[in-house]
């Protein structure tokens, strides 16, 4: 994970705009990648990034140093904002309202997108570790984290008991955590 010093947060809190720029340069890419993965829409993902940075600038005290790392908090905030948007869009479509795209989508199958070829070792390792999770754990984690489904919704969708859903999430997360620990040791 890119190193985001908590000192940067103190400087932002003091109104130092260059610190916000430094944070953007070091970390916005990771936040944007997460948001785009959830939303699948570049313009919406860009808005999430803009909103999160604006929020941080206006209300830096929303982060508390005693309750975790600044970088983790930023990613969780980005994830939650993206999921809110994803749900809001889904609700609109579920109400049978017209999608702004009018149901006509461009065929993007030939496009490779703007995915970067280079990933940091840590990101690359995590991505591999995630892809090597047992498919049933990976599926539950995807629905939980990247689609914002709660336990009950996953249980209904995959026809699993609530206990199974929770244990698969927990096991999947533990495996990811352990895989990173092994990388560092």
């Amino acid at each position, binding site marked *: 994970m890119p190193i985001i010093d908590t000192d940067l947060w103190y400087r932002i809190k003091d109104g130092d705009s260059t610190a916000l720029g430094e944070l953007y340069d070091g970390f916005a890419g990771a936040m944007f990648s997460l948001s785009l993965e959830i939303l699948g829409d570049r313009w919406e993902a*860009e808005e999430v990034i803009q909103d999160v940075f604006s929020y941080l600038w206006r209300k830096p005290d929303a982060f508390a140093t005693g309750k975790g790392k600044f970088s983790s908090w930023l990613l969780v905030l980005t994830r939650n904002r993206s999921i809110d948007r994803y749900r809001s869009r889904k609700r609109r479509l579920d109400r049978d*309202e017209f999608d702004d795209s009018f149901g006509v989508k461009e065929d993007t199958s030939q496009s490779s997108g703007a995915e970067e070829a280079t990933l940091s070792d840590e990101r690359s390792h995590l*991505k591999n570790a995630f892809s090597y999770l047992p498919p049933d754990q990976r599926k539950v984690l995807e629905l939980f984290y990247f689609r914002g489904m709660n336990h009950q919704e996953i249980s209904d969708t995959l026809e699993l008991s609530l206990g199974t859903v929770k244990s698969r999430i927990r096991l999947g997360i533990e495996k*990811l955590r352990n895989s990173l620990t092994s990388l560092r040791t």
Partner: protein
Amino acid sequence: MSLDSLKQQALDYSLGVLPKEESLLFEALLEQDDDARHWLAEAQEDCAKLSLTAPSRELGEEVRTRVMEHCQKPIDLGPFLACEEIQRLRDNFHAFQNRYSGGGGAVDLSDVRFSKLKDEVEGNYENLLNLFPLVAGDSRAAAGDFSNLQRILRSQGSFTDGIQKALDYDLRGQDPANRSVLRTALATMPSLSFFADRIREKQPSMGDARRLFFLCRDQLKIMRASFRDLDPARLVEDEKLRLHGAGLLQTKWWGAEHAYFSSNGKVRCGHFFDGPVTERCVEFAEYDANMYCLANLLSPRSSDGEFHLELLKDTVPGCTLAVAIAKMDQNQHDSLQMMLKGEHNLVPGFEQDQHLWTLIEDSMMRGHHCNRPEILREQQAFGCKRINGYTYLWFAWPAIPHSHDGAEAVTSNPLQ
């Protein structure tokens, strides 16, 4: 509480899925329990790891520029809000029992006197419908591949030519159909045609595609709101009660480039209040058209290539106030003010630019349930003012009553 239960709570709290009452209890626990704080930090770490499994994507430079604009000092609106004109607006404005919610400016296509012009409106709408998915956030253009978009744009006629063709007709007078043609030709289209031409002819940026996306979306809605039989099925959706938040306006105007034909400049946004602005798409389309008209009047006359937009609520009780501000030379300001008053016709582009002001005037008459524009001008429901070298243009729009504020607003700014 068992360890597993505490860990589960910490995870659910991090992801915002813990029920509200349990969240409050967990927050109380965080204040006094080291274990709770430890497991919250762990849960956030785990989530961060999951986050980093997302494929890495490149973020454009334009986003950085927009983000850094949040750090800029806002413009001081004090002198404007204290001026005599705005005080007069405060003294005279009153809320309406039957709030106007859009659609009043619509005509049928058959009301357009010139059959060729009618065909051109329909053709233009079809072209924009086809263009829209090519600039959406999940399009190839949004991923940096402009080849398909450029191919389609090159195969169509230039939108700029289409505007010129429309303006070649005699569209003067009070005919509502003429006004609908003018609204669809002069509000959004000049900027849309600018970006479409740039993408067609030059090496575009993703920022150009994003801007074209917003313009295309707005223009389609303005066209449907102007010609009710253009696309009746979609108009039914546009007429449904669905609050539209100020965040939608902020999203598309913040840090944007705006063009009025070949004259382009930068938009700076200041304060945009948080909350709903309009009740339906058709009303939002009308509000949007007014905002574009303000921008079109200011952007060619700004002396530094910039203009500011502000969206204020409660500064005049009962209404929202859209304000556009630009630094302007005295002679430019004087000619603008004379043109707005219709006092002379010697200004280049006079008639075309006066149409922009007429469109706002029309809309104000509907919004304020008043068929005498001179009364609205006297009350300063819309107007022009010069303060300290800056020209201010504004229009006041009846606010949605506070009882609606808690309703779900279609806003792109969930953080506020």
